[in-house]
């Protein structure tokens, strides 16, 4: 038996090794800051491997390294690096400064990378579980905090529940087509004309449920607010970007490749889900008082927007979705970076009213938060606008003008709760003195995210072209 060509897998292999290396190093390195640095170096190494690496398929199409997967992996790595940056000081304050934290992040990133590259449902499942299991633990990383426990438990139970749906769907499609390879499934469905088979549709819909859970689309979003609120803030930042993007990656690949011919069938379901997701996210966010919970709902809403790209389909639709997730990574982690700074010794800083008068004591942090809030709202000249604009462009192009109208109206509603933060910061008098746990690493994260948000907002060409190029080989 010849040695399979594993060159496309090099980044993943490197990642796995590094993750284990970090786990081992943790035993000998006392200063956990070094672990963080190593984590980031790992990310850059993988980044390098990714760019220098070979594209192609491995294991007879079970693993695919194409532009699509590379783009998503870039998102994962960015979110990994940014999250690491904002974690360093935070987990010190929270007194959970353990090395596992970083290796779990690396493992979960590995899981995502595998997901993005999965050409086969089996691989997909493995990646998904690797990611999920790591994140379950990360969510419960504050072992002594009941809310963290609760978050972890809820995420775990519901995650496992959703996984079961995924497997059931897999078994059905396997039974129908005799294969688990995505392209083979598509081919089989096309040649045997069982697109309208109820069993096929049942399977497709169960996939919707499972992936809908991962991207926190309503009505499968219920876990998200509780988990986002209870999990350590840095993990929340990570979860809201990485795993969500990974969910979209598999959503896109499975639905546009394996079920590409069935698009007219599943679009009819995805549209109401997308609208419901935007509605639930944006509307419930209005009445939140905890900023993490508010951002959780906001993250649900953003999943709704990104689904528009999926609904629109075609290369433009997918590219717009990817572009959006890429931009979302920066603006959301940026916002969380500010949120995390408010956490100081003996002060949680999670309440929205804690932001009152922040502009007076901390003008720079407030200004950055303002940028992120406007970006999340989608006001130019920030990246958030470019992201939404591309989505709407794709939607109109695909003939879903009315969906774009619905989306813009929801984004107008969303302005209300994002602006409320700005309002608290700038238009209220400070109640007490709020200290910030500023550190150089958080500073770097903020600088990077803010720069990205503003630069992409003004010069989006690079990102758009990247997303478009990534879709080409899809």
């Amino acid at each position, binding site marked *: 038996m010849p040695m399979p060509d594993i060159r496309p897998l090099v980044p993943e292999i490197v990642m796995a090794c590094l993750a284990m290396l970090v786990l081992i190093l943790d035993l000998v390195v006392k200063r956990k800051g070094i672990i963080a640095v190593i984590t980031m170096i790992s990310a850059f190494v993988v980044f390098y491997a990714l760019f220098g690496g070979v594209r192609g398929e491995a294991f007879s199409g079970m693993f695919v390294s194409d532009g699509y997967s590379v783009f998503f992996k870039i998102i994962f790595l960015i979110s990994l690096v940014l999250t690491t940056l904002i974690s360093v000081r935070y987990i010190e304050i929270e007194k959970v400064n353990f090395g596992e934290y970083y290796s779990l992040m690396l493992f979960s990133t590995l899981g995502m990378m595998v997901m993005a590259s999965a050409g086969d449902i089996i691989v997909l499942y493995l990646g998904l579980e690797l990611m999920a299991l790591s994140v379950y633990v990360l969510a419960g990383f504050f072992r002594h905090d009941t809310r963290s426990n609760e978050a972890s438990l809820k995420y775990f139970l519901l995650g496992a529940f959703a996984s079961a749906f995924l497997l059931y769907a897999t078994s059905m499609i396997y039974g129908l087509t005799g294969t688990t390879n995505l392209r083979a499934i598509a081919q089989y469905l096309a040649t045997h004309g069982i697109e309208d088979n*109820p069993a096929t549709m049942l399977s497709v819909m169960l996939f919707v449920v499972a992936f809908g859970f991962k991207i926190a689309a309503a009505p499968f979003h*219920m876990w998200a607010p509780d988990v986002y609120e209870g999990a350590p803030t840095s993990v929340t930042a990570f979860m809201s970007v990485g795993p969500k993007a990974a969910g979209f990656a598999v959503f896109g690949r499975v639905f546009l490749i394996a079920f590409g011919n069935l698009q007219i069938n599943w679009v009819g379901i995805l549209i109401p889900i997308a609208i419901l997701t935007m509605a639930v996210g944006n509307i419930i966010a209005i009445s939140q008082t905890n900023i993490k919970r508010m951002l959780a709902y906001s993250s649900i809403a953003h999943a709704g927007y990104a689904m528009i790209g999926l609904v629109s389909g075609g290369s433009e639709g997918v590219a717009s979705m990817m572009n959006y997730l890429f931009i979302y990574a920066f603006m959301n982690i940026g916002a969380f970076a500010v949120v995390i700074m408010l956490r100081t010794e003996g002060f949680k800083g999670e309440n929205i009213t804690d932001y009152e008068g922040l502009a007076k004591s901390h003008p720079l942090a407030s200004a950055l938060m303002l940028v992120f809030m406007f970006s999340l709202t989608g006001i130019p000249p920030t990246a958030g606008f470019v992201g939404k604009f591309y989505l709407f462009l794709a939607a109109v192009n695909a003939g879903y003008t009315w969906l774009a109208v619905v989306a813009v109206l929801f984004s107008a509603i969303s302005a209300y709760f994002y602006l409320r933060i700005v309002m608290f910061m700038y238009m209220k008098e400070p109640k007490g003195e709020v200290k910030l746990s500023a550190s150089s690493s958080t500073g770097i994260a903020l600088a990077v995210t803010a720069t990205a948000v503003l630069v992409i907002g003004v010069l989006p060409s690079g990102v758009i072209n990247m997303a478009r190029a990534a879709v080409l080989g899809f």
Partner: protein
Amino acid sequence: MDSYLLIPFLPLAAFLINILFGRKLIRDNAHWVSILAVLGSWVVSVITVEGVLHGNTVNRDLYAWISSGGFKVSVGFLIDPLTAVMLVVVTTCSSLIHIYSAGYMHGDKGYYRFFSYLSLFTFSMLMLVMANNFLQLYFGWEAVGLCSYFLIGFWYEKKSASDAGKKAFIVNRFGDFGFGIGVIMIFLTLGTLHYDAVFASVKNLIGQTVTIHLLGVQIDLITFIALLLFCGAVGKSAQLPLHVWLPDAMEGPTPVSALIHAATMVTAGVFMVARCNPIFSLSPVAMNVVAVVGAVTALFAGTIALVQNDIKRIIAYSTVSQLGYMFLACGVGAYTAGVFHLYTHAFFKALLFLCAGSVMHAMAGELDLQKMGGLKKHMPVTYWTMLIASLSIAGVPGFAGFFSKDEILWLAYSGPSPVGKFVWAIGTFVAFLTAFYSFRLIFRVFHGKFRGSHEQEHHLHESPKVMTVPLMLLCVGAVASGWVGVPQLLGGGAHFTEFLKPVLGHLEGEGTRSEEWMVMAISIIAGLSGIGLAAFVYLREGDLAAKIAQNFSFVHRVLWNKYYVDELYDAVIVKPTIWTAKNVIVGVTDGKIIEGVVNGVPRLIGRFSSRLRNIQTGMVQQYAAVMAIGAFFVIAAVLLWQ
């Protein structure tokens, strides 16, 4: 350099100098600037009028004011006989009143302000009469209204004064509304606003009609335009039903009443109708409306003047009444007679006001007839001048008012107007009324015993020279200004009519000489009997007037309250508008309906949000149940849909 440009722009310069430097630098010397400027204007006017007498009329555009597409209008000047008459009236009266004011306003803290406004007014009025197009006319029209506003409310700390100024402006706006639309109609139908072009082509509109769809009425186009223009005149010249501002305008300083609210501004309406005679003459309906409105106003105001006790208000109502006379003249086609009366009236009415001012000066601002009496011996100059003015207005032969009034009545009687006889009858009766109330004023103020307080009596004195000299000069005008228009019947040359003939045409009365004598005799009798009756009632001892008032208490009350017109407007227009604004528009439409939706939708979303968040119970199994139900619906929908 066209010297006539100096006529309006000298006063403008004076205004600018005074308003910019008056408060700090010029202060009590403000009158020099204004007086020199207006005298300069007067001199240039006289020279210009001299030119016009020799046929040198001017019609020249200074520069293009507004041009937009086909709409082009210039700032330009037209000096023809009609303008010439107005120039004489305006600059002469203005000069004299400027001089008078230097004495009258002496020591007022707004001295510089007063003179700058006077200059601005003079400028505006001159722009009005010298305009060669409708839009510039409109400019002057509004600008004089503005000055009137400033000057009525000159003592702005008094609520009544600032109210009166505001009222004048707003009531005028009602008239200007029609006037403005009239101007627009002229442009839309004739494509130009320049007098010569408009008057040349207005005949082309004969027979055209304009339909007002929503009302379902069809109106002759020329009548429509003429009536719209007349709206403006009604406002500016205080005719029914927009006369209400003028009596209130007496809150302003007396020289202002004399200049603006007697001699010049209020006659702008008459001037405009005369100017537009080519339009009005083509519409018999409009002409009749003008005549009847004029006549009715004359009667209406004349009756009110009978019972008032405020000397300035009496003169104000007399002004309204005399303006009605002028419109009456225009309405029957006797434009020259109307303008002639305008011209004579300017002198004697300004004189009346200035005399009233002189009386006020002596009485420390007192205006009530009942507190006066016997002033003759204290202030002889004022008495004699005022007496002459009153004789003039009463139409006593030989005085200026006689000639103009007689011409109006004769042409109304003999002219072709279908309403001519009717308005003649009213006019004659009004002549009687005029004589009566004018002499009531004279007798009550200057004759009999002094009825005021001792301090007032002690304070009585003749006004200074700076005031009495203008009185005497005006007095000359009040007597002699009529001599330029002595009718042929009396052996005169009717020069005035001849002078204006090129612009206003000439209406030949159709009647025999004996008829003409008869009309004149009736008017003389009316005037003299009015004077006689006044003497009978007010010169004798005893309280005859009070008894009459008692016996006709209803009539007296109605007249005393000016037919309740102010109250009517207040109840029908002012109060309901404010009420609607407060309670309907702001309270309901804006506050409840629009704001209700605007605030209600977000509030609804907010409420929905706090309801919806209760779904998130925190119970894992419910979350799972929602997922399962969601999955069920998703699957069911797809399977059913297929």
